[in-house]
């Protein structure tokens, strides 16, 4: 056990492991690229959807059920499905990651919108704001803390799941996990897993710190 951990330590800090096209630096960059792009696409889909549902109050059924749908969706299955249908490309990976992230974003955005005090919305309308002004000047800013929580959750989930890119022969930190498994190299598997966990936790801490800073004037 001790040997395993000391080997893991050596693997993580060795200079050669960090350089080159198969190095940790490059894999990390790939991993972040997949994750950020997938989350960005998911935001472009999920945020307007959540805002629309929250603002109009129509389609709440969809928002609520999307959450359980998202949890039940087998990500690897989805990758394989899109791969079989569309052939080998990054597309299956992005489809799967986006499908994973959208529900978290929609449900949190919707929750944030419904949590806005009805009196405040009423007052906004009563001051003569039009629908879009109520949405962008009052509802969106007030829902923002919960919306950001949704984005954070989505990003963390995507980072943790982006290892599947390696499953269909692409890069990212998943490379170490899948290569390690194939080569029966436990140190490499663990190294990959630890790196993914560290990235996820670091992003989570950074984003929640940012959230606390941005919303320092809020009561709740």
């Amino acid at each position, binding site marked *: 056990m001790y040997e395993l951990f000391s080997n893991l330590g050596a693997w993580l800090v060795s200079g050669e492991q960090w350089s080159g096209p198969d190095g940790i630096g490059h894999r990390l960059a790939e991993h972040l690229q997949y994750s950020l792009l997938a989350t960005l696409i998911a935001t472009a889909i999920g945020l307007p959807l959540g805002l629309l549902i929250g603002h109009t109050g129509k389609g709440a059924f969809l928002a609520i059920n999307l959450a359980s749908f998202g949890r039940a969706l087998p990500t690897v299955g989805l990758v394989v499905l899109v791969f079989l249908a569309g052939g080998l490309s990054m597309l299956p990976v992005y489809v799967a990651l986006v499908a994973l992230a959208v529900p978290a974003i929609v449900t949190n955005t919707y929750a944030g919108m419904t949590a806005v005090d009805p*009196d405040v919305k*009423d*007052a*906004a309308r009563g*001051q*003569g*704001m039009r629908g879009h002004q109520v949405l962008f000047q009052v509802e969106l800013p007030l829902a923002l803390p919960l919306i950001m929580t949704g984005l954070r959750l989505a990003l963390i989930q995507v980072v943790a799941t982006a290892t599947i890119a390696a499953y269909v022969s692409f890069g990212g930190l998943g490379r170490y996990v899948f290569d390690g498994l194939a080569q029966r190299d436990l140190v490499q598997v663990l190294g990959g897993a630890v790196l993914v966990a560290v990235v996820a936790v670091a992003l989570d801490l950074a984003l929640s710190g940012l959230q606390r800073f941005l919303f320092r*004037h*809020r*009561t709740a």
Partner: protein
Amino acid sequence: MIQFDAVHKRFPNGTTAVHDLSLEMPEGGVTVLVGSSGCGKTTTLRMVNRMVEPTSGTIRVGGKDVTRQDAAELRRSIRYVIQQAGLFPHRTVLDNIATVPLLLGFSRRKARARAAELLETVGLAADAGKRYPHQLSGGQQQRVGVARALAADPPVLLMDEPFGAVDPVVRTQLQDELLRLQKELSKTIVFVTHDVDEAVRLGDQIAIFRTGGHLVQCAPPAELLARPADDFVADFLGAERGLKLLSLRTLADVPQGPAPEAGNWSLVLDAANKPLYWASKDAKDTKAAELPVRPLKDTDSLLSALNESIASPTGLIARVDAEGALTGVTSRDDIHAHAGQAHTEARVAA
């Protein structure tokens, strides 16, 4: 002037909120809508700025049918103050007040400068402007709500139980403040409350609603208190409506006499002739040797005079001028006689 003409409101669930309402609310006056919960008073108010659309009938503000105007633009000239103020929690107090000027296209600098003036108008310190609503007390938030409604100088104010969520002391302060502002600004105000005392204090006319959205009576407070239209109105105004009527009359025309002395008691004055306390000449009774006096001005109500005459050990009330110097005293009997006379006048006047 706001005119309701045969206005009817039925909600989609079938309840009638307002039933065949015809009512005029005079320009520059305060019309108070009262009634128990669910009587349609808030719905009536909200139909003026189209937060609720009438099912039938017409509502005109300044002669123009409200349903023919753009709702958002209408609401920028007819301003709305609600209970709990409904302030935007993510904006500073100053930016809250500047909301409508900004919607109207004023520059941010100009809107904020005007907002800072309004802060003073409603009696808030200038540094409150940089704070966020949750950092203020309930009463202060309500003042901000009024300031926000006054920005860009609207001719009409709609106030829906604006002082309902603050304690009685602050409530009285806010009422005084509103009366002071109204003296200066002469807005057309529609005010919803379920508090009869508030209605009597603030209203130039009071409209009483009964459940089902029926307007029962609309009259100036004195007339309403003296001659309620039916038992419902009488019950709603309460058994002490006679005393409430006295709250509308001032001491001004009640005569006063010179003698600040009665029996064993004399009124002690300071160097500036201001009443300090009632002093007993009976030395044995040390505990009751001094009793407080609450001097009254001509602008104080007959009700407070009656109250003070009961509290006074001599039955005399001390009358003072604007500077607080004694002008004379009035006896309990004089107040009683005057109160009775006021009542009779109000009840026989047609």
